[in-house]
């Protein structure tokens, strides 16, 4: 038993490949917990960041700087009465939020947090991800229809039309990146670096490895083609997740709350959870396809070799740059902990604030402790990839919040116009241009 568990630690594949049920379970649980924690963080961060953009403070009461606000909200939602409209179709009504949540979490099975940090690596990973996330539409349509009410129905029709339409542009942008995996050569235009051959792949891990092999993130590949396809995907993914400025299905001022108007309490919170999980999921697709997945910035730049006994071994890929960047998680966590200490120190010196101050300091200490744990070589090496991946996803999540506080909302016909008449033609053009350029450059290089 013990051997069965430890045997995986030395393998370099994903638990799914190794067929190790124990580690599959562990990874699924880790991802479930991680995504749920991510949703909680997003909840708090979105409020705080938006509040500061809008000259207000945001939650400040529950816990220091409102840190416990998401938990208070979750508690409130759980305790709320679970209402259902009398005329609603009860089976479908109850099934819809479950379906949405299951879909949102299933997607994470193939998300590669590192070369071996994924539940499994499918040959059709990307197809699986797009397919499963397209099933979220079903849940929304079901919710809207089952509520038996006009506003949810309108919201559901809107969102299904919107999601199906943007899937097309999204697919074209994704194809561009997939096409890039099949190209040979390194560097932005595939002319420099090692002429490593690549075959096209839909596997999420394979896509990142192709970026590593070609020595370029696909956002920079064939500049500006990679960038354009990334931008198209970035726009489509906002529409796909029904977020501002494409949040028509839940346009508060028009349709009250869209498809989940009639839901309350726990079931509503499931929709909320699914929405944020889906945001994280599409961001991970973007990161995997264009931003080099788990690769750190400049992964081929190692610098002079150094060796620290018992901590850092010298090697061809263990240079000083590697050492410095390996410390990034430590710096990030200790820095966050330091910010918490600063906040605690700046808090009003009043006995009433003592608990809050101690709480914030304790939270800072916890973060710093996590940072220090990341120094341990065994942890450090395993956490590296996850850290860079999560950091890139976090940037994308910040963009979501930024959009939401900046842009007005599109009207439905305009949204469709943008999707079909602007994004789709550009995406197809970029796809064709990428294919042409790839073929031409390979022919030239071969000659």
């Amino acid at each position, binding site marked *: 038993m013990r051997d069965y568990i430890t045997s995986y630690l030395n393998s370099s594949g994903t638990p*799914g490949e190794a067929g190790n049920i124990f580690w599959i379970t562990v990874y699924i649980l880790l991802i479930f917990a991680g995504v749920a924690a991510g949703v909680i963080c997003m909840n708090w961060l979105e409020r705080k960041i938006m509040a500061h953009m809008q000259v207000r403070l945001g939650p400040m009461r529950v816990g220091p700087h409102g840190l416990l606000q998401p938990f208070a909200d979750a508690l409130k939602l759980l305790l709320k009465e679970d209402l259902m409209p009398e005329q609603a179709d009860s089976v479908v009504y109850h099934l819809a939020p479950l379906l949405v949540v299951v879909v949102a979490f299933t997607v994470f099975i193939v998300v590669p947090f590192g070369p071996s940090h994924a539940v499994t690596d*499918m040959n*059709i990973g990307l197809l699986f991800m797009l*397919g499963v996330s397209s*099933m979220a539409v*079903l849940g929304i*349509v079901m919710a809207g229809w089952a509520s038996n009410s006009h506003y949810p129905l309108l919201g*559901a029709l809107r969102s299904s*039309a919107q999601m199906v339409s943007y899937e097309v542009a999204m697919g074209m942008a994704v194809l561009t990146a997939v096409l890039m995996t099949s190209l040979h050569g390194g560097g932005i235009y595939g002319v420099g670096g090692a002429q490593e051959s690549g075959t096209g792949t839909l596997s999420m891990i394979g896509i990142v490895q192709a970026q590593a092999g070609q020595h370029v993130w696909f956002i920079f590949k064939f500049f500006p083609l990679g960038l354009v396809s990334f931008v198209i995907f970035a726009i489509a993914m906002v529409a796909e997740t029904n977020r501002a400025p494409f949040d028509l299905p839940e346009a508060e001022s028009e349709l009250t709350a869209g498809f989940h108007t009639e839901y309350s309490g726990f079931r509503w919170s499931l929709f909320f959870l699914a929405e944020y999980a889906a945001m994280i999921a599409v961001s991970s697709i973007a990161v995997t396809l264009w931003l080099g997945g788990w690769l750190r910035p400049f992964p081929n730049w190692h610098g002079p070799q150094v060796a620290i006994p018992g901590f850092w071994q010298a090697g061809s890929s263990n240079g000083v740059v590697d050492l410095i960047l390996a410390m990034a998680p430590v710096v990030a966590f200790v820095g966050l902990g330091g910010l918490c200490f600063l906040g605690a120190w700046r808090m009003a010196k009043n006995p009433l604030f003592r608990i809050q101050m101690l709480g914030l300091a304790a939270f800072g200490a916890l973060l710093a402790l996590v940072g220090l744990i990341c120094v341990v070589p065994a942890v450090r090496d395993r956490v590296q990839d996850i850290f860079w991946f999560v950091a890139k996803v976090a940037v994308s999540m910040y963009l979501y919040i930024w959009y939401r506080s900046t842009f007005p909302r599109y009207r439905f016909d305009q949204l469709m116009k943008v999707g079909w008449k602007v994004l789709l033609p550009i995406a197809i053009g970029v796809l064709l241009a990428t294919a042409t350029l790839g073929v031409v450059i390979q022919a030239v290089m071969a000659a």
Partner: protein
Amino acid sequence: MTPVATPFFFYLLAGLALLGGVLVITRRNPVHSALALILTLLALAGIYLMLYAPFVAGVQIILYVGGIMVLFLFVIMLVDVGRAEKEARFNKQWVVGVVASLALGMLFVSAYVKGKALFPERLARLAEESNTQEIAKFLYGDYLLAFEVASLLLLVAMIGAVVMAKKRV
């Protein structure tokens, strides 16, 4: 990833598929039928995975579940379900229909019993790892003409659907 091709999974998925199929033709409410059909489609996608056809399974989920069924649900919502629910579920010739279908079923059974030798037990182990690439080679090689015709068909269908569903012609 190796598909877990155990009998247990086969019977589970086959059971789900048949259950979905039965529900499709018996439910009074079309939305319930559509959901049952989705269950069948997903179960079939699982079976395709067991048959080393991951690409078709992916296409099944994206196109069928994410596309065609959403279209179905969309249309069911546009047309009024309320009245359809009150009407009789089956038409008058349902007895004849069932009898005819069962006769067809007997035909199948006899064919399978008689022609068992035609289905060899051997299973060619297909290269699952390169399934997508292999299919691509077929699609853009041997079947290129069919592929282009299919895309033309889709275009025609799209135009047809738009013309059909347009308000006032």
